[in-house]
Every structure is written in C-alpha cells, then in structure tokens.
C-alpha cells in the first residue's frame, strides 16, 4: 500500500502546485452559486424585457420561481462544468508519456497497475469533491430561498449524473492507456460518447446506456420512475470496471519510450 499512497500523494501535490485544483474548485463553486442566482434574477430579467416583449404581443403575467428553477439551471450548467473538468484532467497520463517522467518511476520497479490505479483514484476523488461541492452549494441556497422538497428524487438524480461523470473519466483513462497524445485521447473518447449518444436513439437499448444517466433531471419533476434507471446504472458500473480492467492490461503491455 505504501507505494500507492506515495504515488497518490504525488498526484495530489501535482493538482495543488499546478493550480488545477484551485481552478476547478473556483469553477465548481461559481457554478454552484450561479444556479440559484440565475433563478433569483429571472423575475428581474423578465421585468426588464417585459416592455419589448409586450410590443411583440407577449404579455407577462406572473413569474413563478422556486427551487425547481434553480435545479433546472443546475442540470443545464453541469455538462459545461463536466466538459471543462474532463479537458483539464485528460492529460494526466499522456503528459507523463510526453515528458518521459514515468521512466524513472517504472524503472524503480513500481508495478504499472499501481500507477494506473493511483491516477484513476485521484481523478475520481477530484470529481467526487467538485461535483458534490457544486451540488451542496446549490442545495444550500435553494433551501434558504425556497424549499428543496418540491424536487423529487433529488439525490438519486444527482448520483446518476455523478456516476456518468465517473464513467467518462474511466473512458479517458482507457484511451490514455491506448494512445500516446492528449488530442487523440480526447478525440476518440468524444467519438465513443457520440456512438453511445446515437445508440440511445434506439429505445430498445437506451435504458442500458451510460448516456441515459445524463437525463436523470427528468426525475425531479416526478414524471419518471427510479427503476427506469437501474439497468443503466448496472451497465455503467460494468463498463466502468471493464474500462479500468482493460486499461490496466493495456498499460502493463505498453512500450514506454
């Protein structure tokens, strides 16, 4: 365990000293605050626009905002946050190939799977911290201004989104074991996502796909049932294990130049 702990410590130190932890934390805090802030500002914005709207024949009567408005914002903004997150962490393995920094570590006799697992765990941990930080900030404000009870399955739907993020990260790591450069890793990961996205148009397989978890916000209105997501969750967990497992096997056999 000592080698893994030492390498994890190095990874965390790198996130801190390269400023990536700070950037991501600020970003997710901002997103967390922005969701209720936009909801709060909506009536004011609408009033500002009401004159020009009435000229076009639209008349504003009553603007109803509540915690749901803020949670809708949350699910509108979190994909952008996830994308930035993935872009910032995607080079965690490829930058080591490019710089040649793994050579010293591997020639010291550190088992390659320990490197792979340490890196994956740290990025999982980072996503966990940042995602739930954003969630709880929005949750706190929503509770203060309105009432969160209006949204049903709040935690479950957030968990679905969180899990989809974890799956994305594992996909990036699998691609990083396969390919040498960051741009190809991002490109192929994006292609795999698109493949899943197009596959989700077919209703037969839609319920199994990780991309279905990204639509978990439908649960908030209480229209859908939790059980509709159970296959997607099981299948995503399975894919997650496959991504990491295959990633380790490939990384073990990789030529390090």
């Amino acid at each position, binding site marked *: 365990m000592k080698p893994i702990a030492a390498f994890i410590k190095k990874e965390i130190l790198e996130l801190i000293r390269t400023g990536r932890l700070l950037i991501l934390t600020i970003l997710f805090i901002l997103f967390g605050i922005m969701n209720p802030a936009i909801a709060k500002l909506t009536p004011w914005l609408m009033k500002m626009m009401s004159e020009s709207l009435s000229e076009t024949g639209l008349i504003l009567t009553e603007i109803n905002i509540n915690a749901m408005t803020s949670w809708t914002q949350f699910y509108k903004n979190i994909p952008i946050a996830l994308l930035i997150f993935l872009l910032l962490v995607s080079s965690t393995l490829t930058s080591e190939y490019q710089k040649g920094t793994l050579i010293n570590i591997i020639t*010291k006799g550190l088992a390659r799977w320990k490197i792979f697992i340490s890196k994956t765990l740290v990025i999982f941990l980072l996503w966990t911290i940042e995602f739930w930080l954003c969630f709880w900030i929005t949750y706190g404000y929503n509770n203060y201004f309105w009432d969160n009870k209006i949204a049903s399955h709040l935690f479950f739907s957030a968990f679905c989104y969180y899990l989809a993020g974890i799956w994305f990260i594992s996909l990036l790591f699998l691609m990083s074991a396969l390919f040498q450069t960051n741009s190809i890793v991002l490109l192929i990961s994006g292609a795999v996502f698109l493949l899943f996205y197009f596959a989700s148009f077919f209703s037969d397989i839609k319920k199994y796909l990780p991309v279905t978890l990204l639509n978990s916000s439908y649960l908030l209105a209480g229209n859908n049932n939790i059980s509709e997501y159970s296959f997607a969750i099981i299948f995503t967990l399975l894919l997650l294990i496959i991504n990491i497992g295959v990633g380790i096997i490939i990384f073990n056999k990789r030529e*390090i130049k």
Partner: protein
Amino acid sequence: MDILTLAQVSKSFGNHKVIENLSFSVPEHTIFGFIGQNGAGKTTTMKIILGLQKCDSGSIFVNGKPVHFGQNQTNKYIGYLPDVPEFYDFMTPLEYLKLCGNITEMSKDKLQQRIQQLLELVGLTSVNKPIRGFSRGMKQRLGIAQALLNHPKLLICDEPTSALDPIGRKEILDILVNIKQETTILFSTHILSDVERICDRIALLHNGKIAFCKSLEEIKSLHKNTQIEIEFFRTEDANLFAKKYKKTQPINNTKLLCEQQQENDIVTIMDVLVQNNLSIQRLEILEPSLETMFMEVICK
C-alpha cells in the same frame, strides 16, 4: 559473477533491424563502456534491459533473474539514468527522492539517511527550489542520486555526459568513478575520451551487433605496431628525410608517419635527423587509441 547477461537479443522497428543477435555480459564491479554511433541501438538495448521495450527474440538476465517486458521485477536491482532525465518539476529534489524511496518501500530512517548521503555526493544538499529551475547538469546529478537511491547492483547510464559542458562532464565522471566500489556501471556514450578515462571493459555496438567486447588493455595490446609522427618546419626537410628513412608515409607536406616495428626505431630516426641536420617541430609516438579502433570498425 556476471550481473547482466544478454543472449541472442534481437529487435526491429518495422523492417529496420536495430539490434541483431546481441550477446554480451557485464561482470560485477566494473565500469562497462557501451559505445557506438548515434542510432546504433544503445538506448534501445538499455530500454529492453529495463523492460520498457519488448525484444523480438533472445533472453536477458539481471543478477541471474530473467527480464520480462512490462513486468519489471528485475528493475529492483537496477538504477537507471536516462540521457535526459525528466522529473516532476513541481517538486524539490528532496521531495522527489522521498517519492522514489516510498514507491520502493524504503524505511523512513534509512531513506532520510540515504537521501542526505546522495545529495551530498551529487552536491545538491543546499538546493531547495523546484526542479523546474534546474540546469541540465543539475538534473543529471539529481538523476544519478535517484538512480543510486536503492543501492542498485547495476547502474545503467545512457549517455550521461553527452549534453553537458566540460565542467559538468567532469563532475559526472568523477561521481561514477567514486561509486565503482558500490555498484557495477553500464555506461553508454559516443564520447570516446570519457570511456578511455573511466571504463574497464568496452563493447562497441555497430550495425546492431557487437563489433568487439574487450578490456581497455586488451584493446591497446591488439595494436602492437605503434606509429611515430614527425613534423618538420620545411617541406624540403620532410622530403629529404623520406629519402633517407624508407619506412615512412606522408600525411601532408611537413608531416610524416613512420611505422614503429622495433623499440629502437625511434633512436634510428633521431640518428637520421641528427646526421642530416634536420630541425623538427615535433616527434611523437602515437599510442593506439580507442578512436583508431572505432574508426577502423565503423569505416570498414
């Protein structure tokens, strides 16, 4: 005992054969010079020994244990210094060495002691800034420290002096000579003077094969016929000398080369010079150098 043995190792990149049936062994407590032109396959050989690259055929043993690609158990006997060592540049040397010690499960006290010892050896004791701001020479010295951290039985250095200025080079060579008692060193380079200065045994890699693998003394004794070079002030003197002393070859107008077949040849030469009242700039017995051997093999 041999610390490293390569038997019939081959490796190609596509159609290009980088090394072909390479076999040699490195005895314990020697500095083994591994020389060859750029692109001769030195780095590839070293990376195969370290399990970083896969060989197409053949076997390698480090300290009697076989090397398997990807699985690097034998690396615990090896310390490796790449040609341009790369570190996590956000760390200080102390932090980096601690990381290296912890991933190899060294005990805390032992690690602390070893780090102090090594930082002293490579002269980085008082350096407490991130590696980002290091010069090449400093990185190379830190590279030696990390390679020696675990008391390796075999230290592999890939062209450790090629990118350094004369002072940096001297520092690295001095460190290598100092640690000869502790470990065996496999040292690749194309700087022949470095090899002549510190190596006990030398192997020349050419066209993917070992052209020769001998001790420095053996190499020198191979060329018993040394040569004598004479440089005159004037062309006429050189021509006159060439007439009087038959066993000469001209190098240029004022320089002649004589084969020394017997020990007293030099006396005969000086006698001819005195008899004919010929003044010279220089008279030198040319020792057979590694460079002549190197050129002979490469230019064949």
